[in-house]
């Protein structure tokens, strides 16, 4: 019972609404409860991870800094679709945190293996 794992899906670009921040906060909270957490950056969600964002120009906190803290919370299962990277003409090195690049079949498996999914 206690070992339920949770998949959180990020689908929104930076500076869009509070869903990225809200989803990240769920990740940090659930890790404190020893819930194994995985993160999937889907579609526009991958834009959240582009290296070199200067949020200070908009007088906003840089959520990317907090994404970088995930490893300190033992959250290291981060996934990005290879096809989403291609769509935005990105390569893995453009992302500021290490993610596993997966294909659509692997993504479907990831969803199947997850016990709970939150997709804000």
């Amino acid at each position, binding site marked *: *019972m*206690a070992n*339920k794992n*949770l998949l959180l899906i990020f689908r929104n670009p930076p500076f869009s609404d*509070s*869903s990225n921040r*809200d989803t990240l*906060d*769920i990740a*940090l*909270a*659930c890790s*404190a*409860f020893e*819930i194994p957490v995985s993160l999937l950056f889907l579609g526009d969600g991958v834009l959240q991870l582009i290296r070199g964002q200067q949020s200070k120009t908009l007088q906003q906190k840089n959520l990317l800094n907090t994404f970088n803290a995930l490893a300190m919370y033992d959250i290291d299962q981060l996934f990005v679709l290879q096809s989403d990277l291609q769509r935005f003409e990105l390569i893995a090195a453009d992302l500021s945190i290490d993610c596993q690049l997966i294909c659509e079949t692997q993504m479907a498996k990831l969803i199947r293996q997850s016990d*709970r999914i*939150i*997709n*804000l």
Partner: protein
Amino acid sequence: MIFSLLIYASQNSGQAEQTALRFSRSALSQGHKIHRVFFYGETVSAISNLKITPRDEIDITRQWLELAASDNLDLVVCIAAAVRRGVLDQQECDRHNRVAANLVAGFNLSGLGQLADAILSSDRLLTFGN
């Protein structure tokens, strides 16, 4: 079956809360349990005593309270989301030195730990959002 619900919607756009409320009534009437309803994000803005619902419209916040009263629902409002949107209970009102508390009685401010607990303690987690 034990359910928990995560509500992530604005009362002014879409019908997510109405759907969640109908789902809850139906689940309870079938003998299922609802461990917790967790209000998160923009949803929390409307759980305020300062909100005025026109007389010829339904006040969905009242409907949650009615269901909570008849079926002992645990209605939890995310404290970080609430404070940021100006929805305060007496404790937060005092802490931040504000003029008045406005959280609707019957809802409780608490942290995301309550969502984590709901995930661990329930057979199903349903998200209703817009």
